[in-house]
């Protein structure tokens, strides 16, 4: 049902785009996302646990260089319905990250060479941001601002397919007549086609510890799963509770339906 809806919407979007093309100029609207299927879609869908753990690795080793994920704390890595790392694993992952330490006993937040004082993260810490503020992020990225990824999958139409399409569509040849702007990259799934992000995932760009081959598609699939969880971490609880609620309500409705039938009979109504 949801899938069918998506396809219809995507088709509608495509038709809309074709309609908007004018003869003279190149239409640089984003291409409709590729059709991809995920384990977490549909009423019975769950996150693929292994994909979540691999996706975290891709986020940490690739995306985190520029993108923050500020709504997620290290403790969330152990969450039921999430990546479900063991507590020991989550502690180790946290300890490997550095977060700003805050003022020391002399009231200093920076050392003598002007660097921020840091400490190892603990489970309660949120994922550290790669840049201290928006201006620093823009300066480091030729004026572009890498957005926070916490809600990315929910912040775009067909977000999971969109992010997947974006990550797997570098290296295409731009159509004749389209000039890629200076300092930008060509990506037809990005509105305007000029994207500030260089190709993020590359073949074997990460080495998976579970032996999965790290193709571009595999990494994109894994990191999208991870980001989908980051955007909607309670999805599994939600669907599980949904079934219980619906079963109860159907039973309730059946009983009420019988009661309704009875009063209808008693009062000789239509």
């Amino acid at each position, binding site marked *: 049902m949801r899938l069918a809806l998506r396809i219809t919407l995507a088709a509608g979007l495509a038709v809309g785009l074709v309609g908007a093309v004018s003869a003279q100029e190149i239409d*640089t609207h984003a291409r409709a996302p590729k059709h991809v299927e995920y384990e977490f879609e549909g009423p019975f869908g769950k996150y693929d646990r292994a994909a979540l753990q691999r996706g975290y690795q891709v986020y940490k080793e690739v995306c985190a260089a520029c993108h923050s994920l500020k709504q997620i704390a290290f403790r969330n890595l152990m969450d039921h319905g999430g990546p479900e790392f063991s507590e020991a694993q989550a502690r180790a992952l946290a300890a490997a990250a550095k977060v700003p330490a805050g003022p020391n006993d002399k009231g200093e937040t920076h050392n003598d060479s002007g660097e921020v004082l840091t400490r190892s993260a603990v489970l309660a810490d949120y994922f550290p941001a790669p840049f201290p503020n928006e201006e620093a992020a823009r300066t480091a990225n030729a004026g572009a601002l890498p957005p926070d990824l916490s809600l990315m999958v929910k912040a775009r139409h067909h977000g999971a397919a969109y992010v997947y399409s974006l990550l797997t569509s570098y290296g295409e040849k731009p159509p004749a007549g389209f*000039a890629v702007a200076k300092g930008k990259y060509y990506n037809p799934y990005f509105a305007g086609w000029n994207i500030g992000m260089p190709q993020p995932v590359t073949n074997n760009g990460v080495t998976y510890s579970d032996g999965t081959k790290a193709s571009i598609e595999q990494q994109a699939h894994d990191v999208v799963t991870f980001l989908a969880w980051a955007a909607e971490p309670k999805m599994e609880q939600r669907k599980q509770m949904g079934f219980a609620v619906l079963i109860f309500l159907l039973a309730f409705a059946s009983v009420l339906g019988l009661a309704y039938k009875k009063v209808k009979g008693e009062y000789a109504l239509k």
Partner: protein
Amino acid sequence: MAGTTSDAATRRDFIYVASGAMGAVAAGAVAWPLIQQMNPSAAALALATTETDIGAIQPGQQVIIKHRGQPLFVRRRTPEEIKSAQAVDVAALPDGLARNAGKDAALPASDANRTIKAEWLVVSGVCTHLGCTPTVSTPSAPEGEYGGWLCHCHGSAYDTSGRIRKGPAPENLHVPVYSFMSDTRIKVG
């Protein structure tokens, strides 16, 4: 109270009317601060001027600065853009007024009346229809038919002088009060 005369009645009416009037005054006096508290606070009013460097802007480029919480377009126009802005017949425009807060309100919407230096166009980035931020038009990515801006909310198209040419917006993009502190720095407000 026993011997009611018409004099007494008049006096009593007066007392009632006076009481009512004073009650109304009291209600009005109480309402005034309750209404006024909604207006911008002293802290909001304090952010009324903005200074910014414009030296790094290239011809054909615009930057958006934040002034009074709203976007402000600072656009360094190319010679072609200036030429097309000056060539427009002011009498045929939907809004014939310059809308320049730094100049007389009755001036016509000629390009000269909307700029200080022809190369620089400084206009509010707030569509005069319903307040969206219009998207800038560049030769490589045109927006609207008039080379200036297109507001995607309701389709208002502006020309290279920020004048409304098509769509529901009633007025030209407003020009704020601003001045050049040097060749590369402006002060708005």
